[in-house]
């Protein structure tokens, strides 16, 4: 039953998500191309000593264009969480929780589907940024492998200095933590609020994100201020990542326990 529910939930978003993924890629390609063209135009005017403020203004405006890629990602995340909300906190919950399996299985399968889509979208976000950069630098940096060099970074810096593997691990744990936290907010708000459930859920999400942001930034600032220098070497980087992973995993475990044992197992569908 777990796999059946997971498959059904995943497929229910497939059509919509494929469209949004395609939109994200098109946005990255178009914005990359436009940025490339505008920059070239601005450089030509600059070389000729003509300062066309319209071009400069447009070019500086385009420097904000990666925001559009992030907006597409946010829209995707909203669609994914809205699907989860619909299946567990609206009238559709009557169907969800009368399907022939226990409530916790229903919740877990739906959460896993949500998580799968979020990871796909995060991957698409990264790909879209890379595509945007490559397209915006075509003609200026070639071959593409030299892009890091264009920014004064060598590949060894990326792999050694930023502790790529540990960084990715931390990012994965962070994404899982965020998803568990948001599902927790959705379930708790829908349980507590008798009216205006959507508003209450959004408010609760903002509240929980705010508190989490404050807590995490305080912890990391404390950790960073205790280091002898701001230069992140491998040792300090590993410590931060390890500490961050432990904090986030603890958060995931606590929230998961409350979700499974308290909210879902003691279900009351209004």
């Amino acid at each position, binding site marked *: 039953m777990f796999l059946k529910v997971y498959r059904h939930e995943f497929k229910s978003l497939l059509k919509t998500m494929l469209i949004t993924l395609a939109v994200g890629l098109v946005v990255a390609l178009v914005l990359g191309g436009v940025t490339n063209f505008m920059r070239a135009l601005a450089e030509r005017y600059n070389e000729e000593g003509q300062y066309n403020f319209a071009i400069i203004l447009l070019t500086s405006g385009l420097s904000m264009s990666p925001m559009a890629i992030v907006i597409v990602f946010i829209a995707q995340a909203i669609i994914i969480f809205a699907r989860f909300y619909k299946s567990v906190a609206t*009238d559709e919950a*009557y169907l969800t929780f009368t399907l022939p399996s226990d409530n916790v299985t229903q919740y877990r399968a739906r959460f896993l589907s949500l998580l799968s889509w979020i990871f796909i979208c995060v991957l698409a976000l990264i790909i879209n940024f890379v595509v945007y950069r490559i397209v915006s630098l075509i003609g200026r940096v070639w071959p593409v492998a030299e892009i890091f060099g264009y920014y004064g970074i060598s590949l060894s810096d990326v792999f050694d200095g930023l502790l790529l593997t540990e960084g990715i691990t931390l990012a994965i744990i962070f994404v899982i933590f965020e998803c568990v936290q948001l599902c927790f907010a959705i379930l708790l708000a829908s349980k507590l609020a008798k009216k205006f459930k959507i508003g209450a859920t959004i408010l609760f999400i903002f509240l929980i994100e705010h508190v989490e942001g404050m807590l995490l930034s305080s912890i990391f600032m404390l950790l960073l201020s205790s280091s002898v220098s701001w230069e992140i070497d491998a040792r300090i980087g590993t410590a931060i990542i390890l500490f961050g992973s432990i904090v986030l995993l603890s958060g995931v475990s606590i929230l998961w326990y409350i979700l499974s044992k308290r909210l879902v*197992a003691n*279900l009351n569908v209004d």
Partner: protein
Amino acid sequence: MPNVLEVKNLTKRYGKFTALDDVSISVEGGKIIGLLGPNGSGKTTFLKCLAGLLTIDGGEVLIDGKKVGGETKKVVSFLPERTYLDSSSTVIETINFFKEFYDDFDEQKACAMLETLGVDKNAKMRTLSKGTKEKVQLILVMSRNAKLFLLDEPLGGVDPAAREFILNTILTKYKDGSTIIVSTHLILDVEEILDEYIFVQNNKLTAYGSVKAIHEQGKTVDGLFREAFRCF
């Protein structure tokens, strides 16, 4: 027939409000039972407890000898008052969904019933009227070969012609040996098909008996209901 439903000292609270207070009942298999009572008496709460949509605060509910959970949901078919179907799906997609999730779902029967009521299988749920959505939902629920059917106000939003269809559908299930618990205010419409009645008042079961016995006394369940729940 063995008991399909055993409820012992069931209590359900919403905060400080007690929605069901120490309810006990045993229901034999193969019966049609009317769950009757005024608004807010606890009928829907009772059905939702049996369907596994509410966590009970006290007592025990056994369906087919098992505690309410994943296993009992396999043999219980619940029709809530609300429309719970995904509005973005078509009718046929919804049928396929039921077919995929319920082993006892009879697709042919569902399609035949849809045809009888003239519902377009390719229509999106959101384009259907409220009454038609309720009919589709009823068809889906009644197309299962479940042991226990829980119907919450199945006659509420449908026209008189459809009511007859619904009552016939319930009778078909009765012939198949299933137990059907129908919660309704429209007692006159269902009285003829009922075997037993349950009266719910002030969150307690106040009466449980045979409809035949009432009729033998020259009374009707509707008359008894009006007597028991007189407002003035």
